[in-house]
């Protein structure tokens, strides 16, 4: 019948091989496939998500940045101990150590051609500390709190006054938040209700960074093109970068393996271990600094307010089983040690915990609950690929010492809610800090100020004393003792049981070189090249 011939013609047409894609533009364009794309181009925007940091990092300049160091295995990473110039050519710390003066580059321009001056830096920093939410919080972490601290000496000289001698202030100027915005362009779109032009900057590029924003279709893709007049560093090699959102992890892997995508960094650990083993693609692995996945317990309410019960849990956790069959060894095993392997103060011998069911049962008896109890085990559905199997393994092993748990898979929005309420008895979660200092990690996770990340609502004045001292201790020996002090206390009190340090794995075609690991765990396009 004629209808079947029409159908077969259509099918043949569909499945003929594609026309040879424009090879020339392919070699200068990088295709990144991600699970979730940016929801804003403005790092100061309300609710800007992590992919938004990547856009801002590449679209904007900062005053200074970190150096680079090459690891024994040949991979490169940022060096948090070395600060290098970016927009600022040079800077001096005042003799009294209470301020820093930056000399700006004279030839730097914004994407729309207007020259970059100190007043842009002033406007941008004032914006960061007053707009509230996460950016203001991050600036405060480096004692950058008030607009009065920022002064314009002349068009190309900018001064920052310190509130206190905080060794985090200078490094905090190199994190994604303190960007330099084209204040003239932004102010044109500001209104009385929106003085900082949040609405406009969210969707537009007021930067002067190495890449300009070519187009952005939220929820689909964002395309960046090289800013050829960029002066704040060596001109990047890639002309164009496309970040395309592909929700299904399976498809992302298929795209990589068939060579249609160049780079991806949010695949499940199992895929990374198999891709690495296959060797067709290059996989760069790097344990995430100052981070760990943990089983947290609420120390305020029974049953986990009882230290013996917490220790029993610490001995019942199947560390190796989780690390192998959930993470496929992609990371570093911590077995109860709160400090990450590549963070100052790490000492494997400090933590006594390992999987020892007999000891765990004994501790349960000592705790006065030999036949255990019922409770609820929670995890964030957003990270279900890893947390769900881990929760199931934890549930099974805790069951063997009498702790019967039902698992609750909580959608993203509700997870933040429960974390704020701090009512979850026991849960699987993870945290990573940007600034690679142990006291910065403890300040967020163990300090009595009970920040949202102190999910266990653990408050112990001794712990607070140790952390606060360490934050402002300049003598290296005393600093080391303080760090050892609060680490041992955290292990003894075990409000949470650190499991492992996850990897930031990045899979890329063999032709991609120059990848560098950054603390914000996003891609820096500026060092990448594609042969």
């Amino acid at each position, binding site marked *: 019948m004629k209808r079947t011939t029409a159908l077969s013609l259509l099918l043949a047409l569909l499945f003929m091989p594609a026309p040879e894609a424009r090879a020339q533009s392919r070699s200068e364009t990088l295709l990144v496939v991600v699970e979730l794309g940016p929801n804003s181009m403005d790092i100061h925007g309300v609710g800007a998500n992590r992919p938004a940091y990547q856009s801002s990092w590449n679209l904007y300049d900062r005053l200074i940045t970190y150096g680079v160091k090459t690891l024994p295995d040949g991979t490169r990473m940022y060096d948090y101990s070395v600060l290098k110039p970016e927009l600022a050519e040079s800077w001096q710390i005042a003799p009294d150590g209470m301020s820093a003066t930056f000399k700006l580059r004279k030839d730097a321009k914004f994407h729309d051609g207007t020259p970059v001056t100190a007043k842009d830096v002033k406007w941008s920093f004032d914006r960061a500390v007053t707009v509230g939410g996460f950016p203001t919080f991050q600036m405060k972490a480096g004692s950058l709190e008030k607009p009065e601290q920022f002064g314009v000496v002349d068009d190309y000289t900018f001064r920052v006054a310190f509130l206190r001698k905080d060794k985090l202030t200078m490094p905090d100027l190199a994190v994604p938040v303190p960007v330099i915005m084209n204040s003239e362009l932004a102010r044109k779109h500001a209104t009385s209700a929106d003085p900082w032009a949040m609405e406009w900057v969210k969707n537009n590029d007021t930067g002067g960074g190495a890449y300009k924003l070519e187009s952005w279709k939220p929820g689909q893709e964002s395309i960046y093109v090289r800013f050829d007049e960029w002066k704040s560093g060596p001109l990047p090699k890639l002309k164009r970068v496309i970040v395309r959102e592909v929700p299904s992890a*399976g498809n992302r*892997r298929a795209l990589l393996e068939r060579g249609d995508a160049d780079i991806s960094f949010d695949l499940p650990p199992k*895929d990374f271990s*198999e891709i690495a083993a296959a060797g067709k693609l290059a996989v760069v692995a790097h344990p995430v600094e100052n981070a760990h996945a943990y089983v947290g317990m609420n120390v305020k309410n029974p049953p986990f307010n009882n230290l013996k019960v917490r220790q029993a849990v610490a001995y019942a956790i199947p560390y190796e089983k989780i690390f192998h*069959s959930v993470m496929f060894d992609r990371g570093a095993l911590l077995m109860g040690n709160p400090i990450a392997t590549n963070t100052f103060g790490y000492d494997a011998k400090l933590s006594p915990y390992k999987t020892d069911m007999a000891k765990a049962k004994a501790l349960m008896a000592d705790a006065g609950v030999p036949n255990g109890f019922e409770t609820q085990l929670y995890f964030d559905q957003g990270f279900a690929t890893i947390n*769900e199997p881990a929760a*199931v393994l934890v549930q*099974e092993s805790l069951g063997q010492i009498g702790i019967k748990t039902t698992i609750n898979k909580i*959608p993203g929005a509700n997870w933040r809610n429960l974390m704020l309420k701090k009512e979850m008895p026991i849960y699987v979660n993870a945290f990573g800090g940007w600034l690679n200092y142990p006291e910065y990690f403890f300040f967020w996770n163990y300090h009595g100020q009970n920040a949202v990340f102190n999910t266990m609502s653990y408050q112990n004045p001794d712990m607070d004393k140790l952390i606060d001292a360490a934050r402002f201790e300049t003598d290296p020996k005393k600093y080391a003792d303080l760090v050892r002090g609060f680490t041992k206390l955290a292990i003894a009190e075990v409000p949470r049981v650190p499991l492992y340090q996850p990897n930031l794995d990045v899979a890329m075609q063999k032709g991609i070189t120059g990848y560098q690991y950054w603390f914000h765990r996003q891609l820096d396009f500026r060092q990448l090249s594609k042969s």
Partner: protein
Amino acid sequence: MTALLRHGRYVLGENPVTGLAFALFVLLVVLAAAGPGLVPYDPLASNTAEALKPPSRAHWFGTDQLGRDLLSRVVVATRLDLTISICAVMIAFAVGSAAGVTGGFYGGWTDRLIGRVLDTIMAFPLFVLAMGIVAALGNTVANIVYATAIINVPFYARLARSEVMVRREAGFIEAARLAGNRGPRILAMHLFPNCLPPMMVQISLNLGWAILNAAGLSFIGLGVRPPTPEWGIMVAEGAAFIVSGEWWIGLFPGAALMLAVFCFNLLGDGLRDLIDPRRRT
């Protein structure tokens, strides 16, 4: 009774596909009832040493990421999946036909009111409504059943209403009314039984659809609570392993799901042939 049996045998005989579907249905019911007793392993016991093994003599369907035996999980899941779909469809059938029949029989503003409510449910994108309900009330099995039931109510209500509207003026209804039966008795005794045949077909088609709906919810993370074995969740988990080559994790639960839905749909067709007077030449 013998006439029905002979009639039944004729339809099954003449139409092997319906026969096959009926056999499948019996198998499913047996698995649901005796499943947990028959399985070689504990469906919840993890064994990481044996993780991600392909089908072998020890594990006919292979093992999943935590080393749990897939055959046991697929078999044990039968009970849960059948319960979800049967309960959901029964609720939808009860509520739907009650609404449809009352609407059709009494007419007037009750009919219009019920009609508007049905329109609202029908206007909703069905799957999104289910997602909303489960997301709002939490993903317990009961909520999944209610969500699946609500979105199926309009099908039954519409069917019941049209059947009743057609027969409302029929002679025997007038006679029953004259004999002093009040409204509800007429509805229950006379009108409702007539709606049953087309309803049977809708029920069987719906059963299949209800299971698929539960699977869809699992795929977006709103399915049954882990670690309970349920086909939808296992297919959703398996989906992530297709590209990496562990095809069996998703395939076997998918096959079980397909067989169940397949069986219900074919039963639906078979029932229609059984009931459709025209086919009874």
